[in-house]
């Protein structure tokens, strides 16, 4: 359990990249990118976890309770926004590419070579 969360994060990242490499559909590729990104959330929060700690939100607990790291949570929030926006932009590009090029298969995109 001492390294399991970190290794899971690494697995998610590599599996997402594997999907990107082997993808036959650009929409699927964008989804794989989102998967690869979720590894960063997992790693961030795993790093910030403290055994026996609770959320650093003191609306219903006293401020002297042992808490987990709030900084990584703030970073993860930022990261999630980044991920969603990148996904949105890339999907917008895919939509237009399909219109202009008639395909969402990366193997069929052939006009930028050499």
């Amino acid at each position, binding site marked *: 359990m001492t390294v399991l969360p970190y290794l899971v994060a690494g697995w998610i990242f590599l599996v997402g990249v594997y999907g990107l490499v082997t993808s036959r559909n650009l929409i699927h590729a964008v989804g794989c990118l989102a998967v690869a990104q979720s590894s960063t959330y997992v790693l961030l929060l795993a790093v910030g976890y403290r055994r026996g700690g*609770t*959320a650093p939100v003191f609306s*219903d607990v006293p401020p002297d309770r042992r808490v987990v790291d709030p900084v990584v949570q703030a970073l993860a929030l930022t990261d999630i926004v980044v991920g969603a926006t990148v996904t949105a932009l890339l999907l917008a590009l895919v939509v237009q590419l399909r219109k202009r090029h008639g395909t969402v298969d990366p193997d069929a995109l052939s006009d930028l070579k050499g």
Partner: protein
Amino acid sequence: MSAADGWLLAGLVPLLGLVPVLWRIAYGEPGDRLIAQNLACLLAALALLLTAQGFGRPAYVDVALVLSVLGPAGTLVYARFLGVLPGSRLVRWIALAGVPAAVIPLCVATGPGRAMVKLLVIGALLMAGGLVTSAGSRDEGVGA
């Protein structure tokens, strides 16, 4: 074993229930996938409610509240795109029996107050959502 442990153990049950649901979502028929998605939201909400009590943090219930709003809406969106909304006894059964089985003890444990109102709202939303999305359309399988 303390009461908190009991709640966490109870929360483990819906969590483990998600494992076969994932299998269905990944490898089932289109209709099955939709049912599984619906079920996943319901089970996750129950796990969130129970563990919030287990962690002694009523504030965590907000996550379940948001899920109880977004979950059924998501299922309906999928139904719209996939063109199927199959009925499911399992979902209906969990909405009718599982949700009260979790929410009522939780209400007893929290006692009257704002937290209890929130729990009841979540329970009502989950039940309503579960019932609406599990009713199925009468002309199932016609056209495509």
